[in-house]
């Protein structure tokens, strides 16, 4: 057998190999190959890990899913999960809280961030750089660390905030354990966390405003207030609107800080939609119901995002 193999004509295979390599090379240099290499991974990931999961959630929503020894058992229950969803005691207060949280936190952030940017934009270069670095801190640190920091500072027994109040002769406040003020405390932490982000965007916006307009108008405006109202504010409208919409939609994602600070409690005082989904899915093991919640949340946020987009487009046209 060995002998037979050696009698085969040898040079042909190398020739074949060469043509194969040549055609491979030609394909590698062709447009088609580049299209599939450059767009393939993106399209595949978006398709398999973002679109497919939504369909998958829809399928899960129709089932009761139980895990036993790492194997899932699916039982078809029709629209039963949807009925359970409308009766859920966590999701609906959570949705309301999320709206309260987003609207109040973001509006305070916008006002504070804008005002500070106005002030800092007239400071000298050195202090601007220093402030930028300081204000970057809360933005780039892991949100869970922000949660840990405030858990330490807001503690009822030994938190430094209560110590400080004690120095002023004020009785300690149970910031995170009192159902009446827990949501307010969480909103305050979020304001602390994200005002710097608004500040940085606004500062960049202010710095890119055309100086000529200010020079041209310096004879017409009577005071700083008029300049702000008739010139700065209209020029900044675009930046303000984009930042507002951006923060609004992103604040719907809040999860990490709430997980660490209050766990949605006491009761449903600080429950938010992300936490309801997490609880239903991972602690209560009701995947079907969790899937219904996820789909509903996706619809709400998608509607908000599309609405924001339309608003921006209309503004651009006018």
């Amino acid at each position, binding site marked *: 057998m060995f002998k037979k193999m050696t009698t085969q004509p040898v040079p042909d295979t190398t020739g074949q190999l060469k043509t194969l390599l040549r055609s491979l090379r030609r394909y*590698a*240099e062709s*447009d088609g190959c*580049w*299209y599939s*290499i*450059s767009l393939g991974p*993106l399209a595949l*990931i*978006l398709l398999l*890990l*973002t679109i497919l*999961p939504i369909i998958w*959630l829809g399928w899960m929503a129709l089932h009761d899913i139980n895990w036993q020894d*790492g194997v899932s058992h699916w039982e078809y229950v029709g629209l039963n999960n949807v009925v359970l969803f409308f009766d859920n005691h966590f999701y609906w207060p959570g949705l309301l809280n999320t709206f309260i949280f987003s609207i109040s936190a973001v509006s305070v952030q916008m006002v504070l961030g804008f005002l500070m940017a106005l*002030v*800092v934009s*007239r400071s000298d270069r050195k202090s601007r750089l220093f*402030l930028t*670095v300081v204000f970057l*801190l809360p*933005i*780039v640190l*892991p949100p869970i*660390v922000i949660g*840990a*920091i*405030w*858990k*330490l*500072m807001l503690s009822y*027994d*030994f938190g*430094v905030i209560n110590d400080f109040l004690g120095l002023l002769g004020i009785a300690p406040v149970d910031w995170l354990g009192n159902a009446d003020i827990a949501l307010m405390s969480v909103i305050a932490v979020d304001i*602390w966390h994200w005002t710097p982000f608004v500040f*940085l*965007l606004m500062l*960049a916006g202010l710095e890119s*405003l055309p100086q000529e307009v200010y*020079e041209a108008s*310096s004879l017409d405006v009577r*005071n*700083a207030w008029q300049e702000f109202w008739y010139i700065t504010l209209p020029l900044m409208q675009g930046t303000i609107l984009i*930042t507002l919409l951006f923060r609004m939609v992103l604040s*719907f*994602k809040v999860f990490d800080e709430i*997980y*660490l600070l209050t766990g949605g409690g006491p009761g449903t005082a600080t429950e938010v939609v*992300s936490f309801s989904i*997490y609880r239903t*899915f*991972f602690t209560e093991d009701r*995947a079907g119901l*969790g899937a219904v919640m*996820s789909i509903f*949340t996706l619809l709400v*946020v*998608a509607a908000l*995002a*599309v609405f924001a987009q339309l608003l921006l487009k209309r503004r651009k046209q006018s």
Partner: protein
Amino acid sequence: MSHTRSNHGFYRVTQLFVWCYALIILFPFLWIAMAAFKRQIDILTSSFFFTPVLSNFEELIFSKQSSFFHDLLNSGIIAISSTAIVVLISAMASFTLLRMYVPRWLSVGLFAWAMLFHMLPPITFVSAWFTIFSELNLINTYSGMILAHVTINLPMGLWLMSNFLKEVPRDLYEAAAIDGCSNAATFFRIVLPLIRTGMIATAALIFIFSWSDFTIALNLTAKATQTVPVSIATFAQEFEIKYGQMAAGSLLSTLPALLLIVFGQRYIVKGLLSGSVK
């Protein structure tokens, strides 16, 4: 804006306010950094003056019960690989989408869907990924975590890279194409060097996002691939909260971000601005 006839006193007051806010930002970080060097008893009595000890760090890193060092490694592996993949994929894709002929419905559709996905709360997808990944045995594996992090950060990468690519003049690679450069060669030899700063900015931001992620790691990992944010959270969840170790772990977990701020502050600001305003 130096041309305003502003009320000088008012300006001083507002300036003071800004510096107070900077202090309000800094103080909590200093407080937790101090807590990291306190014994539990010093934390519980919230004393300003204390003898600094290293016991929290020792327990965190060298104690047999603590997996913190291992978690740091996991975080590093997952963040670095997912960042590299995101930057490469999004740089190639945005070059093709912006600078080559692609049907309009495809490019608009990809960008629009990526942006919408970025706005959606991650937990909704994590719950779906959990069931899909458990069918595929990807729970608690590096590949599963990297895949999830790549997916969640890809929209931001795509957005940033395409913004940076728009700044590269068209003539440069059109000239390359006329000279007979293949698409791949044009991309790797001509476009990539031109968008280097943009890539660094993107990589810095994506690394920070991946390093900070808690939602995904909490639900898709267990002991073997647990990341730092999850282990910080477990200190806070135990029956007796280990504040000292929580603080020490938090302090260590901020180091990469702090280093990036010190050495790459320009890039991070650039990325943040490009990612949100444009």
